[in-house]
């Protein structure tokens, strides 16, 4: 049987990879992928805790809602990025700097 620790280690690694993706990717869609990684690590945590600690299924419920959240967020995000691409033919976030003091 797989122990709870293994799940937690995997999810922590995925979380850190997600954070690193957000910090180092220049492409807006790449950053979104980092956010997806983070949300998936959250899901993994909730599912693992739900199996090993909680007597109920609250954690699984949260995981399902987070999948929906991720989908709706990605839909809006892609629309916004597409709009940006139409206006400047480029989605490199380091070049999005119209406003500076």
């Amino acid at each position, binding site marked *: 049987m797989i122990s709870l620790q293994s799940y*937690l280690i995997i999810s922590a690694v995925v979380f850190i990879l997600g954070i690193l993706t957000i910090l180092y990717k220049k492409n807006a869609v790449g950053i979104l992928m980092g956010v997806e990684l983070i949300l998936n690590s959250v899901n993994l945590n909730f599912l693992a805790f739900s199996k090993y600690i909680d007597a109920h299924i609250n954690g699984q419920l*949260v995981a399902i809602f987070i999948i929906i959240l991720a989908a709706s967020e990605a839909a809006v995000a892609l629309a916004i990025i597409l709009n940006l691409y139409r*206006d400047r033919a480029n989605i490199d976030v380091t070049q999005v700097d119209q*406003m500076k003091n």
Partner: protein
Amino acid sequence: MSNLNSLQYFIPELFLTVSILVIIIVDLFLKKEKKVVSAYLTALALLVAMALSFQQYNFSPASLFEGMVVLDSFAIFFKILAAFSTLIIVFISLPTFRDKAEYYVLLLVVTLGMFIMVQVNDLLMILLSMEMVGVISYVLAGYNKKNLKSNEASLKYLLFGAASTGVMAFGFSYIYGMTGHTNLYLIQQALLNNNPHPLAFFIAVVLILAGLGYKIAMVPFHFWVPDVYEGSPTPITAFFSVGPKAVGVALFIRFLTTIVAHPASTGLYDFTQNIPIKLPELLAVLAVLTMTLGNLSALQQKNIKRLLGYSAIAHVGYMLMALVVFNGNAIVAVMFYAIVYLFMNFGAFWIVETITPKLKSERIADYTGLGYRAPFTAVALAVFLFSLTGIPPTAGFIGKVYLFSAVIKEQWYLLAVLGVLNSVVSLYYYAYVIKVMFLNQPENNDLIEVPLYNKVLTWVLLIPTLVMGLYWNPVITFTENSLGLFFGK
């Protein structure tokens, strides 16, 4: 309470949901020149939602939908505040977005999200309501699709928002792992009964603070604020600076009262002892950093919207300062300050929205001699800015008196001194705008015609700002009566 029984306590939210659908459908049948009707319908819906929420003061506090949300007077207070702030935003938006039904519908959806956000009693509901407010806000920030600045604001808001929500959710998963519950009350009980691992609990709290701090623009999660405030359409900037932020503070208070603190015999709340660092001290440092950074960055701004954005950060710092002591007085002070802040900040943004189309510029330098070119508008802006500084006899002064007295009563003298010093710094940049308007001679002396509509709405915001500076008793009594946080499953 079971799901079916809960519905009767959920009428304002149900009403908002129905009106959202109705307005979308009604708009399909309106002719181009009659489209403004959907804006009026939105205003009506918000008024009714406010009245329905007000009626809920009669109910005794209860938890609804199997403990998913709670209905207490604290939540009702912020529901009324949220609906009222959106109502004013509808009127502020009317000149710019006259015939955009979907814009008003989006505002209503955010209001519904804010209604749920102040009533949360479950980790899942915190996530869902924050996303409901957040995702729609990203769309609203980029509402001017062809405007590059608006696009940029939208993208930055989105990326910061999505990342911080994810981080917060990760913190939630650890809290769930330590307690085995998602209900805030049950989490509190579990944390009190069996001490969690200090380090794990500390990590979870810090991760969650990242998400909540982003929502209320707390340093060091404030990076999005200046760009989003400058790039978004002005009515939307005004909206972000009050509604979602006040509601975010309410969520912050609820999070503090349930997860890291518990009702105490001595004061109202005690911070849970099993955190390895002292949370009040951490909050004090964050509050001082937030106001200092906001004020110091505002000093060098050339753009009025960006200046108001940094000043909004500073004001969050003042509110956080009161949360450090965290007793009944402090929470009342924060709630009262939210009301005051609504009027003065909307006022300042409304003047910006009035003046910008005339000057075709948001630069402070272009406000030169506005006192001669549009006397009434300039005087009104001066009053709002004085109120934001906290100079008597304006409402901002009274708001700050309550915040500072709550801090001083609990002997946090250094914090109060730093807060007052910050107010002095803020005087410099607010007064600079006033100096430019009144003391510098304009290059052209043409009078600026301000429409009657703009003048009336200015008065609507100006009168409470002045009256609450002299006679605030009814408002503070109302606020004190609204201080009731419900604990239960």
